[in-house]
C-alpha cells in the first residue's frame, strides 16, 4: 500500500462519512423510468468495479464503472432481465464481477466454510464441557508419607487443635 493508495483510502473514508449520497451515478446517466432506474441501482450495487476491485460500479467513479453502468441501463431499457444482464457481464469478466459470488462447487468452501468452523468450534466446546461434567477431578489417594505430613501440619495449626 503506497502513499497514493492511502490517500485514496482516506478520501474514500471521508466521502463515506459524509453521508449516504455517495453513489457515483451522475444525473445524465439516470433513466427516466424510476422502476428501471431502481433496478439499475440495485444491479449496480451487485456488480464489482474491475478497476477499484472493492467497490461496486454504483459506488465507483472509475471510467470503466461508468461504462458498465451505461451497459446495465442500456440492457434494462432493451428489456433484459437482471439475471441476463449479470450473465452478460460474467461472460466478459467472470464471476469476479459479481460482488456476491454464486454458490457452485468451486465456492462451496467459501460459503460453507464459516459454518464448518462454527460447527468444529461448537463441537470442541461441547466435548470440553461434557468431559468436565462427566469426569469430575478426583484427587489421588495420599501415600503414607503425605498422610503423615498432613497429620503433622494439621496438628501444628492452632485453629485445628481440638478445643
Amino acid at each position: 500500500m503506497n502513499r497514493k493508495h492511502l490517500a485514496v483510502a482516506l478520501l474514500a473514508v471521508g466521502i463515506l462519512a459524509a453521508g449516504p449520497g455517495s453513489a457515483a451515478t451522475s444525473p445524465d446517466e439516470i433513466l427516466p423510468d424510476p422502476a428501471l432506474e431502481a433496478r439499475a441501482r440495485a444491479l449496480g450495487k451487485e456488480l464489482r468495479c474491475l478497476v477499484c476491485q472493492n467497490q461496486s460500479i454504483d459506488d465507483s467513479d472509475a471510467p470503466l464503472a461508468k461504462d458498465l453502468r451505461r451497459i446495465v441501463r442500456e440492457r434494462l431499457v432493451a428489456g433484459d432481465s437482471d439475471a441476463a444482464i449479470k450473465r452478460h457481464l460474467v461472460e466478459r469478466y467472470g464471476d469476479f464481477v459479481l460482488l456476491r459470488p454464486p454458490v457452485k462447487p468451486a465456492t462451496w468452501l467459501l460459503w460453507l466454510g464459516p459454518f464448518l468452523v462454527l460447527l468444529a468450534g461448537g463441537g470442541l466446546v461441547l466435548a470440553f464441557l461434557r468431559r468436565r461434567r462427566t469426569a469430575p477431578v478426583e484427587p489421588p489417594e495420599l501415600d503414607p508419607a503425605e498422610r503423615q505430613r498432613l497429620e503433622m501440619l494439621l496438628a501444628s495449626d492452632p485453629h485445628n487443635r481440638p478445643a
Partner: protein
Amino acid sequence: MSTRFGEPSAARAPHRGWLYLLPVLLFAAVGVFLALGLGRDPQTLPSVLIDKPAPAFALPPLPGRDERGFSSADLGGRPMLVNVFASWCVPCRIEHPVLDQLAREGVTIHAINYKDAPEDALAFLRALGDPFSRIGADRQGRAAIDWGVYGVPETFVIDRDGRIRYRHVGPLQPRDLERTVRPLLAELGR
C-alpha cells in the same frame, strides 16, 4: 474435613498430547496458503475468455492512418497478438519497444486503440513507431469491454483458429516475451 490437595497435577487427562499438535498443524496450513498468496498479484484477474473464440467486433480505422479498421474477421489464420493501447496510457509507452521488437521478428500484432483521440493516437505512433498491422479505434471502449479489458495496456495471444489463448495485463516486458509470449507463439506454430 474437606481440605483439597494437588488438583492441577492430578487433572491431567490420559494421553491428549496430539491436541498440542493441532495449533502447529493449523499454523502450517495457514502458512501454506499465505505463502501461495504471496506469489500472486491480487490485481490480476484471470480471463474467462481463455480458449474461447475472440468476441465479435468491428471497429472503424484510425482516421489518417488507413481505411481498414479492425474486426473479428481479421483474427485467425496464424497466431497473432492483439494489443489494447492508448496514447494517454503511460505503461503503453513503456511496453511499446517490446511490441516493436516482436513486430520486427515477424509477429502480426493488431491493436485496439482504447478511448483515444485519433490525432493523439497518430502522434503516439509517429513518435514511438507503429508495430501494428491493423488498428481499430474503440472510442467508447465498448469493444474492449467485450474482450473483458479492465485497464490498458492488455495483450492477447490469438491462435490460428481465432481463439484467445493468453491474456497479459499491464505492460509487456522483455521477460514476458521470454517466459510466455514467444514460447506460446512457437507452440501455436507461426
